[in-house]
């Protein structure tokens, strides 16, 4: 393809966007509305996921070590726990530190508990963080087989609830996003099809004059891509600036300020390419498919 031909295609696409500005505007608005809804839903789902993962981080397995275990065997035990593939990290808590924390946390403070310092009843322990909550039972079983461990602090029920809630959120949001995306695709393709059908006569004339299918198709495809691109940029920009405002507003509500939101830059690293990319691809495919039916002249 010669550069001047490419220039012609791009020029024609922009020209057509401007000449048919009302239809172009309607198409861009349709694309933007659909992608805005998909983006909003994505933001919501991502934040629920983020909130749950924050909660998850506070759930860890605590194991108490047999008090008869010689100090020399503590390190091999630690290594065996760390080497479990489901374990993300461990933290060793010395029984003396545990006691200090306990005493400090008591309502009466140090008084009355001082004597415990001479005969510490607590055991050494490990706080074990899991890679995923769903591994809770597997890790618990593996730990139960280690004779050096005297007791396992269990949170099976909480883990199960959290895992279920998270799975429901994940599956529901995935299904809803897919449905919304499908609806958007159909809506956008129809809009672009209307745009193209209004120029059916024009396409027919081009065919009679001897234009190849691709010569006719390229400007439409580029036009569709531009409609999709602009239709993607608008919700991306709206979401980017709106998100910060909403986060600030919710942070200002006392009974809601416990909610932690995903940082804007983290979430928009995905949302912006998703919105713009989705718009562009839908625009491209929509225009390609729409022109096709009018080329058979």
């Amino acid at each position: 393809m010669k550069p001047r031909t490419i220039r012609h295609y791009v020029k024609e696409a922009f020209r057509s966007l401007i000449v048919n500005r009302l239809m172009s505007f309607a198409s861009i608005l349709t694309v933007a509305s659909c992608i805005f809804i998909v983006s909003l839903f994505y933001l919501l789902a991502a934040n629920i996921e983020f909130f749950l993962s924050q909660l998850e981080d506070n759930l860890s397995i605590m194991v108490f070590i047999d008090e008869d275990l010689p100090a020399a065997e503590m390190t091999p035990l630690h290594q065996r726990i760390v080497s479990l593939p489901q374990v993300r990290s461990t933290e060793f808590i010395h029984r003396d530190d545990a006691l200090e924390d306990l005493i400090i946390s008591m309502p009466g403070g140090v008084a009355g508990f001082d004597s415990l310092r001479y005969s510490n009843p607590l055991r050494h322990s490990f706080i074990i963080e899991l890679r995923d909550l769903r591994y809770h039972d597997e890790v618990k079983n593996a730990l139960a087989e280690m004779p050096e461990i005297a007791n396992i602090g269990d949170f099976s029920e909480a883990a199960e609830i959290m895992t279920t809630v998270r799975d429901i959120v994940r599956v529901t949001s995935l299904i809803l996003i897919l449905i919304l995306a499908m609806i958007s695709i159909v809506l956008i393709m129809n809009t672009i099809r209307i745009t193209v059908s209004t120029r059916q006569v024009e396409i027919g004339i081009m065919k009679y004059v001897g234009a190849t299918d691709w010569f006719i198709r390229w400007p439409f495809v580029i036009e569709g891509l531009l409609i999709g691109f602009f239709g993607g940029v608008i919700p991306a920009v709206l979401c980017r600036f709106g998100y910060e405002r909403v986060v600030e507003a919710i942070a200002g509500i006392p009974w809601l300020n416990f909610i932690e939101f995903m940082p804007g830059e983290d979430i928009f690293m995905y949302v912006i390419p998703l919105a713009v990319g989705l718009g562009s691809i839908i625009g491209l495919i929509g225009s390609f498919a729409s022109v096709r039916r009018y080329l058979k002249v």
Partner: protein
Amino acid sequence: MIDFVNATKVYENGEKGLLNLNLSIERGEFVFVVGSSGSGKTSLVRLLLKETELTSGRIYVDEQDISRIKRRHLPYYRRLMGVVFQDFRLLKNKTVYENVAFAMKIVEATPREIRRAVPQVLNLVGLSKKAKSYPNQLSGGEQQRTALARAIVNRPPLLVADEPTGNLDPDTAWEIMTLLEDINDLGTTIVMATHAHDIVDAMQKRVIALSNGQLVRDAEGGYIDEA
């Protein structure tokens, strides 16, 4: 240049377009195709443009059997001919100059070639001063002259005109006919389907008369009503 050999076109609804048509058109000829509505004129034009396919028989254009042309090669075949329609079929969002230049862009002419050829052809059809006008700013005659300019700008050996004067007043129709005659004088073969008795009678060119899809007359001279 053009040969119809036992060319038959029957449409899906049973309507007969052409029946066993045999005729030859030589390079450089000016041929009128006449006949009443439903006589097969439009079928002949549509078949030549390869807008529809023959039911049986063959059509040769420039010695190639057009039924063998694949869909992807159709644009290149159509570039062999310029086409003019009764309803002009101009791109309404393009100026006169751009409409004509568009036909050259399709064949990937260089900008220099376009800059040179378009003003020349607009001058030939008398539209130099209207180059920047849009179709809706032109009279019917001017629109048809623009269509003619577009049809000949790539210097095709064949010009197919389907009722090109059908929407024009008599004076303007004659202007178009004069232009077509000039174009024919330059060596372009012209096949023109028409109803216009007066024009056919006055031009004294070869007349192919069709009736019910069949050839009923092929001779030099005027229009025959019985056709």
